[in-house]
């Protein structure tokens, strides 16, 4: 959520533009891991995730002048990363798109609670691949990442209204499936 705190993304970006490298490092630490997970969930091989994360931050920082501030830094960064991922995928066809069913859950070694967690989370991971791509992407970004519709629109290159419609369609279909 955007905010005006001294450590908001926007403030950190301003600090970086003013020459404060630690602000850039803070942004990498804030978004790097989730961005990596976002890319990996979209089929980027684990060994390539770090390179793409680095490239996304590099491109984002280098082109800060083109960042329109009505969108959050995060959505802008994710859009860059998504485009990089697509480009890389086109260049390297051997990449396998990871089926969400095959994504292992962290902490699988803990037998206690594993069944419950699988039961709950597997419903979503099992059902999502059946959704149309945009519905799936919007649902993951909205429910999974907590982005608002304007951010999602920036990431996916659509409009907030269209993102909202996709989300509601996704929710309706998921609810029908679990009913």
């Amino acid at each position: 959520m955007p905010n005006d705190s001294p450590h908001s993304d926007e403030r950190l970006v301003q600090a970086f533009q003013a020459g404060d490298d630690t602000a850039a490092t803070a942004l990498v630490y804030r978004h790097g891991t989730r961005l990596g997970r976002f890319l990996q969930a979209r089929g980027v091989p684990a060994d390539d995730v770090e390179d793409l994360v680095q490239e996304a931050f590099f491109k984002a920082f280098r082109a800060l002048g083109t960042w329109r501030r009505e969108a959050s830094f995060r959505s802008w960064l994710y859009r860059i990363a998504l485009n990089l991922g697509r480009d890389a995928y086109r260049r390297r066809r051997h990449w396998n798109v990871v089926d969400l069913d095959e994504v292992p859950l962290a902490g699988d070694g803990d037998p206690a609670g594993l069944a419950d967690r699988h039961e709950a989370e597997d419903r979503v991971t099992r059902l999502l691949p059946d959704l149309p791509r945009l519905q799936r992407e919007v649902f993951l970004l909205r429910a999974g990442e907590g982005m608002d519709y304007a951010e999602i629109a920036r990431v996916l290159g659509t409009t907030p209204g269209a993102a909202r419609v996709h989300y509601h369609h996704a929710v309706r279909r998921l609810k029908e499936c679990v009913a």
Partner: protein
Amino acid sequence: MTECPLTDRMPDVAHGWLTWTAEEAAHLARCPACAAEWDLVMEAQAAARRGPTPRVDLEAVARRVLLRLENSPRESGGRSPRRPASRRARWIPGLAGLAAAAALLLMIRGAPPARIIDPLQVSAAAVLAPFSDLDDLGEVELRELLEVSAGRRLGDDRLSLPLGNGLAELDAAALERLLSSLEG
């Protein structure tokens, strides 16, 4: 399309950015459709959090990104790559020497008097003037610029100056030998 009245707020509440009002909480407790949707949102959020964590060395990423930014040309409005302040200072003596050598060469080659260039008037600043953004150039680019600049000012494609060492570092005898070789 019938929508749950809480739909648009659910992800924000799930992420802890908003909280349910008492009225909303009461609705959620008695509406099976909303409850089912709330479960889906919570599951999706949990799955996103607990998904496989890729191996990303954030410290290394930050370090490499900053290093690349230092060595890359800026884009419109982005932050200027910062260069050591001494870099320009390091090249100024070379450029000044080059300018002086160029003027001297023109005089030796018997250029028309009206076109004789007074070495004192060919300052480093004059050489630098067309290239006001030298700070953005890398070492290779600076070398190329020097070579082009030398060729253009002297009008001689054969010119090959020992730019690696810098003209300013040549002693008088070495400079004389260089000029003699250029004279043929």
